[in-house]
């Protein structure tokens, strides 16, 4: 640290070049931040909070519903704590662009999904209101909904008995996602399965559900319980596939498939290229200063201090640009997410991204510093001073 002023002076020896290099690094880490946000968006199933839950859906496809009669049979399996149900509603608010992730859920759903943090008084009102709905914070903010608002949602699938496709709802609660909840938890809309069933033009929804959410007494029973559930309906016309919630969510994300992978691969390549270029510039900067380094050694700096200074210079450069870049990504990512109109649900830059980013900055800084640093310690003072 006592050489900080020397390192600083060396870094800004040529202001223009350092500024340009910083700008390149900034661009690279801005991209890194965006890449990491995309990666997080495509792997939304990583939440630790749902480890004790299984999802039972139709083996053939998610659009096929399951008989409601399975509820009691699943409940009877040892290791099952609770069974909830959910139906996809396919809601749209006012304009087809405003897609709302909306579900008709059983009464015990909120007990199973304890990460949905709804104040107790709001929960009471929700249970007492037939047309009541609870929405996530972020969703409420997106459309400016408040408790007490009447909100019409249009279903892309289910008309009401009257033939009207618009369903009125009363917003009775706004929940926060508990820490550790999956990305996007605060974007959802829940309402009573009873209302969905009573008002639906399709009578069959009374006897069927979209999928089951099964809570286990302990997470390590997942395999045996899943097998037991699937055995209940083996060889029937509604065979089921039971998997952990993580696997279920991940399979959704993977449906988008190649696109996420390709975008990540491309951004990764970009990052690599930009870093390579920075390394080159850095090497050039040290090469130019060969005689200066020789002077340092002549007046008594040890090889180790010179090595340390060159390495520190690389790390400092990377940190300056990288921190600025990640900070900028923190501003840009929400703008991009907003601009895509809900199509890209990018989470904000979190602590995890910052930690990975900082580790990368140090590692890359040391790496780009290492080659020139090695040159610097091997320097033959006489040759260097003579400019050979």
């Amino acid at each position, binding site marked *: 640290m006592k050489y900080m002023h020397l390192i600083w002076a060396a870094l800004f020896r040529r202001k223009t*070049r350092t500024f340009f290099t910083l700008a390149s690094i900034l661009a690279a880490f801005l991209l890194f931040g965006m890449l990491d946000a995309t990666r997080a968006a495509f792997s939304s199933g990583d939440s630790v909070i749902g480890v004790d839950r299984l999802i039972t859906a139709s083996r*053939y*496809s998610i659009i096929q519903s399951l008989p409601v009669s399975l509820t009691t049979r699943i409940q009877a399996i040892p290791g099952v704590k609770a069974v909830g149900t959910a139906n996809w509603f396919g809601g749209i608010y006012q304009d087809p662009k405003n897609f709302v992730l909306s579900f008709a859920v059983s009464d015990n759903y909120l007990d199973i999904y304890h990460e949905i943090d709804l104040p107790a008084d709001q929960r009471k009102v929700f249970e007492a209101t037939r047309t009541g709905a609870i929405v996530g914070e972020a969703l409420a903010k997106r459309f400016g909904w408040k408790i007490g608002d009447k909100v019409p949602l249009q279903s892309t699938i289910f008309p009401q008995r009257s033939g009207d496709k618009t369903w009125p709802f009363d917003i009775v609660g706004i929940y926060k996602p508990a820490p550790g909840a999956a990305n996007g938890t605060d974007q959802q809309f829940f309402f009573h399965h009873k209302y969905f069933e009573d008002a639906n033009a399709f009578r069959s929804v009374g006897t069927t559900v979209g999928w089951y959410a099964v809570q286990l007494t302990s997470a390590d029973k997942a395999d045996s319980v899943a097998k037991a559930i699937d055995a209940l309906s083996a060889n029937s016309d509604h065979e089921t596939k039971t998997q952990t919630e993580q696997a279920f969510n991940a399979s959704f994300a993977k449906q988008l498939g190649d696109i996420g992978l390709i975008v990540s691969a491309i951004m990764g390549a970009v990052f690599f290229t930009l870093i390579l*270029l920075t390394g080159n510039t850095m090497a050039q900067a040290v090469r130019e200063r060969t005689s200066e380094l020789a002077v340092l050694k002549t007046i008594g700096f040890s090889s180790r201090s010179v090595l340390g200074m060159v390495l520190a210079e690389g790390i400092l450069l990377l940190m300056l640009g990288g921190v600025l870049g990640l900070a900028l990504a923190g501003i840009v990512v929400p703008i991009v997410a907003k601009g*895509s109109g809900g199509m890209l649900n990018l989470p904000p830059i979190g602590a995890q991204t910052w930690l990975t980013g900082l580790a990368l900055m140090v590692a890359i800084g040391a790496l780009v510093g290492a080659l020139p640093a090695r040159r610097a310690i091997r320097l033959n003072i006489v040759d260097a001073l003579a400019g050979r």
Partner: protein
Amino acid sequence: MNRIKKLGFGLLTLLLVAAFLGVWIALPWQGIVALGLAFTAWMAFSRRGRQTWQVTRVGLATVVQRLGSSSVVVVGIAGVVGVLVAMLAMSDGFAETLRATGNDRTAIVLRGGSQAELNSILDRDSANVVMQAPGVKKDAKGRPIASGELVVVANLTRKATPDTDANVPIRGVGADVWALRDQVRIVAGRTFQPGLRELIVGKGARAQFAGLDIGKSIRLAGQAWTVVGEFTSGDALESELWSDAESVASAYRRGSSVQSVTVMLASPQAFPAFQAALAADPRLKVDVSTTQAYFSKQSEGLTKVLRAVGITVGLIMAIGAIFGALNTMFAAVQARAREIATLRAIGFRGLPVVVSVMLETMLLALLGGLVGAGVVWLVFNGYTASTLGSNFSQVVFRFHVSGALLWTGIKWALAIGFIGGLFPALRAARVPVTTALREL
């Protein structure tokens, strides 16, 4: 006074850059070729031009000595162009696949407000009303050419990632489908026989998903179905599996309802009449669109997102690359400061120096652009990928690296080269000769 002059000069340069970028973006390829020819002529026939050429030659001769830093420009720009072209090729490929699926000779009818076939349902009576509407083309026996269709979704395994399921669309089609979709050809095996639980598979689906070879059987709704043939169509239908509508309806207990009705129009001009007739019919509440409009609309969202991501990433990278190029060219000018000063001392004017530095940067940029676009073309043209479409099922599509995209890439490369070269070039020409000569 000096400061004002400097400021004025800075502003002028910025204006120049902005003007160049504006013109550059707007210019069609003919314009740029003409510009290139005019420039070559100037270099060959005017005195200044020939001087420029001499200075450039000296510069180019030393590029090899500065291989490391010159490759920074080339690699950086190749990266920008590669990313941009790859992302746009993905977005174009997806849009083209869906656009090619529809045409203006056929129309598709869905339940009102349903947006995609998966959410739609029409009972048999409504479907019949639609088929009998005016504007629908009749065959030799006087029956309308129309197909009432069902789309269901099956879970199949993706070949590339065997541990994950993909939603693959299965379409139950009416008997008239061969007349309606004349682009569909059976390329292997035979077509399905109605009522026998047989399937034919699209070429794209067969390539992407496991277990779809002819003779194999897959389970749908608890029953075994046999794959009997493979078809091509060159559009999004290739992502699907087909069987007859009645078999699919009975397997999935849909009774006699269908999800959509596709009809052949008597002529493209008959569409408004057809649409108006259905809108006026009190028995129906349906959405009517030409298949062209329907499928094009489905690609809109994703295409937009991909384009936006591509251009955003491209811009950020371009900024990084511009700074990389600036660094390199400033260093190059620095290294040649004496040489340039000597040239100016013996009577070369500023212009040849400026132009030669610019030319060198732009040649490096062009090389980078060619490398980037070329690599993407080699690797990605025709590359098959799939993603979730609006029917909640997989759409298989191909990357399309078109000539226009390659051209866009080259244009970006040259623009980056222009900005990256301009400032170092101006500096080279403006440093006082005496200062430069003294510099080591």
